Structure formats: C-alpha cells, structure tokens
C-alpha cells in the first residue's frame, strides 16, 4: 500500500514539472514579457522598465529564470502582486475560504442530486427518459448564461434572492449569507449533477447486467434490494473517483460562477488579475489549481487501490 502511494506520488512529480513549464512558457510568450503592461504606460519611463527588468531577474536566461521561479514557488515564495504589491500567497489565501464554501456546498448538492437521479434512472425507465433529457440539457448549459438568467429571474424579477456578493453590506447573519450562496451554488452544481448522474446511471447499468445480480434475483432478492444493496454499492466507488477527477472542471466552473455572481473567491481573483494582467497572481493561481487537481487524482487512485482488491491483482 505504502509502496503504491509512493510510486503514484513519484509519478505526479514529472506531471507537475510539465505543468509548471507550460505555465511559465505561457507567461513568457507575452510580447514584451511579463512587463508588457508597463510598456504601454506613458507614465513609466524606459529606464524604469529596464530597472524593473533587472530587479525581477527578467534579463537572465530563460532556463535560469524558470529554475529560480520554480524553486521559489516550491519554497512558498510566490512573489508580489503587480496590482497592489502584496505577497501573492496572502492574496490567494484570503480568497480561499469563500471558494471552499461555494465549491464545497455545490459539490455536496451535486453529489446528492446525482445519487438520487442516477439510481432512479437505472431502476425506472419512465424516470430515465425525463432524467436523460434533463441531464443532456444540464451538460449543454453555458454556465455564465445560466447564471445571468437565474439572476434575472430570481433576483431582478422575483426579488427572492440577492443577485451577487457573499453577504449584504450591513453584514447580515446566517440567513443572509445562505441566501447569497443559493444561486451561485445552484449554477455550479447543475452541470456537475448532470454529468455525474449520467455516469452513475451508466455504471449501474453495467453492474445490473452482471451474473451476480442474476444470482441475487434468483435467490429472491427484491428489486429495491438489488438496486440499492447490490448495484449501487458496486457503482459507488467509480462514482466517487469521477467526482474527485472532475476537480479541474470544477476549477473552470468556479472561475466563471464567481465572476458572474461577484463571489469574493479565488476564481474572481483570477478574472480581476487577468483584467490587470497581474501575471504573478495568474501564475500562482494556475500552479495551485493544477497541483490541487493532481493531488485529488492521486487521492482518487489511492482510494480505489485501497478499497477495490481487483485493481491490486492486476499489478
């Protein structure tokens, strides 16, 4: 077990190196480099740019820059934001709780909806038809448009829920915060619930076709027992891994949803930084998001390995 974890972790390292190269190359592909923003600014003199370039080490060879950037990143020195001069790590960390709240709540909601509809779809044909249409529709929704339409209906027309932010200006209690959370969480949850319920339904169908289900039926196990105790239990593990493996899509979704609803999380920090071309923040965001995705897929692999003996026999 420990050996397996160690080997997977070792495999994750070259993966992260490739990711870091990608992110680094991207930022340095800017015509003018990371200081491009200042080049267009008439208030910044050429000699200032030259001084900045030297101070930030941008005059050194690219490989040297990459290695020193990577080493500082690993040590937790992520540089300073171009926008306000504060340490990038502080800026990111202060936004993390809001994002965790939004992503956590919407993931839990999506998992519950997916479990219910996926199981029912596998068991009931009539329900399945409705669920299929709903799920394909859910997967096709442009997230930002769905957010705008929900804002329009529930905030502007009906006035039931606030349209943006995490709480009212006056602060507000638990109910106030909850009411701010409902719309963005619903938007983020919708697409995932759709995809995950389809996946669960697919693997339930595969399980239901297996001989052991036939054997259980032959022993006189009722339909409810077959679906819940036999099929669902088998389908749960792949379902859980899919949820973990979707972290990357979740990150993209959070960027869009947080921006539409002005949710003060990491995702809206990303769009704000993009508008200001605040490259240190953007690089740190990409690295953190990718590291999180890689770690979650590692967790998924290890979980499967620990819980499913069949995957161990293959080695």
């Amino acid at each position, binding site marked *: 077990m420990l050996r397996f974890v160690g080997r997977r972790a070792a495999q994750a390292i070259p993966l992260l190196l490739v990711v870091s190269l990608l992110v680094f190359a991207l930022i340095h592909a800017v015509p003018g480099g990371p200081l491009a923003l200042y080049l267009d600014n008439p208030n910044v003199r050429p000699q200032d740019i030259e001084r900045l370039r030297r101070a930030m080490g941008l005059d050194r060879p690219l490989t040297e820059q990459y290695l020193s950037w990577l080493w500082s990143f690993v040590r937790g020195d992520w540089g300073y934001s171009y926008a306000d001069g504060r340490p990038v790590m502080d800026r990111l960390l202060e936004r993390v709780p809001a994002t965790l709240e939004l992503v956590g709540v919407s993931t839990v909601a999506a998992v519950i909806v997916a479990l219910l509809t996926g199981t029912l779809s596998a068991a009931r044909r009539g329900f399945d038809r409705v669920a299929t249409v709903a799920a394909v529709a859910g997967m096709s929704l*442009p997230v930002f448009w769905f957010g705008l339409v929900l804002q329009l209906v529930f905030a502007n027309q009906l006035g039931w829920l606030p349209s943006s932010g995490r709480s009212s200006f006056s602060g507000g209690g638990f109910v106030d915060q909850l009411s701010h959370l409902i719309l963005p969480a619903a938007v983020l949850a919708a697409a995932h619930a759709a995809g995950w319920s389809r996946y669960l339904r697919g693997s339930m169908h595969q399980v239901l076709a297996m001989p052991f289900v036939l054997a259980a039926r032959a022993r006189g196990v009722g339909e409810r027992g077959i679906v819940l105790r036999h099929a669902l239990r088998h389908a749960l593990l792949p379902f859980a891994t899919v949820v973990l493996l979707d972290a*990357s899509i979740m990150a993209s979704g959070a960027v869009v949803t947080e921006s539409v609803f002005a949710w003060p999380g990491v995702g809206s920090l990303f769009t704000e930084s993009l508008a200001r071309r605040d490259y240190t923040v953007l690089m740190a965001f990409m690295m953190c998001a990718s590291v999180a995705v890689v770690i979650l897929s590692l967790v998924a692999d290890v979980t499967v390995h620990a819980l499913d003996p069949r995957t161990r026999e293959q080695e």
Partner: protein
Amino acid sequence: MSTALRAFTARLPPPSSQAFRSGPWAAGVLLASLLLLAALAPFVAPYGVDVLDLANRRGAPSQSHWFGTDELGRDLFTRVLYGARISLAIGLVSAAVSAVIGVSVGSLAGYAGRWVDGLLMRVTDAMLSVPRLPLLMISAAVLEPGVPLLILLVGAAGWMETARVVRAEVQSIKARDFVAAARAVGAAAPRVVIRHVLPGVVPTAAVATTLAVGRGILLESALSFFGVGVQPPTASWGNMLYQAQTTMSSEPWLGVFPGAFIFVTVLCCNVLGNALSSPRHG
C-alpha cells in the same frame, strides 16, 4: 476527461421510446438549419449587420425586430445570425483541429507503445490537469488573438479527450489478427496504421469530435464573455453576452437570445454525440 464525454462513453442501454430515437434526428435537422441560416445570413437577415437605428435603441422584441435592438439600435436577430457564423465556425474548425491533434497523438501513442506512449500520455495528463478555461483565458489575454488564432487555441485545448479514446481503441485494434497479418506480409508501420488501424478508429473519433464541437462553442463563448475572445465589432454569441451582462435587468433580451442559441447548439451537438456513441437500433 470531461464529464460529458465520460458520461457518454459509458454505453447507454438501447433507447426504447419513439421520442428518444427521434431526438438525434431533430438535433441534426436543427443544427443543419442553423448552419444554413448562418451561411445565408446576408440573404436571410432582415437588416444589415451594422445598420444603426438610433431612433430605435434598446427596443424590446417586436414585430419589426423579433429579438429587439441593442444599445446602437442594431437588430439583434440579424446580429445573432451573423454571430452564428463566427461561433459555429469556431466550434466546427476547432473541433477539426482537436481531432487532427488527438488522432495523431492517440494513434502514435497507442501504436508505438513503450516510451513514446509514456511520454505522450504524460503530456496529455499534464494538459488535463491544468484547468482548461483559465489556461485559455490567459493565453487569449496574452496573445490577443484574431478569429483564426482563437480557433487554434480552442482546438489545442481540446484534443486530450480524443487522444485518450483513440489510444485505447488503437491498442485494442493493434492486437487483432488482421493487423498481425498485414505486418506479416511486410507492410510498414505507417501503412498499417493508415490503412488498417485508423479506419477502425473513425467511430470513436467521430463521437469525440462531435462533443468537441459543442465544447468549442462553449469555450469561445466563455472567452468572449470575459472579453478576451472575439473582439467587437465582429459579433459572436459570446461577445454579445459580454456586452449584455451589465444591462441584463433592463434589457434582458440582449443576453437571453444569444445565450439561448449557444445552449440549443451545444445541446444538439451533445444529443448527436450521444446518439453516435450508443449502439445502433433500427
């Protein structure tokens, strides 16, 4: 792998109802008519694309302007039709780009095996670990692309799913007897791959590409929505939404219609991809 693709690649049980079977047909017809409308936009659009009607700005949908007018009095229906040309072109061509890269990488990795496979799949995994939309948003902000470069970017961000399914398919075909027979009579590797392996990959690649069309349209619209995609005055469904988001409460039609077109188009692509991936019945 994307949620949609994974969900669809899990084999669906045979569709039973008439309604379900007619779904893909309806989606195909709808997509085809959208393509036709987009291609014929200069002839079917009720107004010129940049005709301003300053007396009639921010008009609600009416008999003369079906979808209303925007802040410059331009007819929204006309702009949606012209936007369709850009959005559909980006979706279709970027999917083709993804297909070319994905099939090349996937078949190379699957057929060559060993270290080539290891290297290519490591790169594929790395690309899948980077959140796609933020990556594209940075690239687009950095490069400030025109439409052709935007197509390349969206295509370059979407080949990984195709590469994975093609690789798996190639691996299974490679183990079949007819491939061994072709090799035994002395066919070189490129010939074996092109003549004997790739034809078997077509169905899988077709499904992945159909889904990539929808994804490409979504990505373009998201990029344009954040102002880093297609730049005005060129209309795309995404940048129409970008311009509409601030006036959503007073002039909702400016956002509702372009978004609805994105939604319906992507829906059609997904329904088609879904139908292509499930086994044929009748």
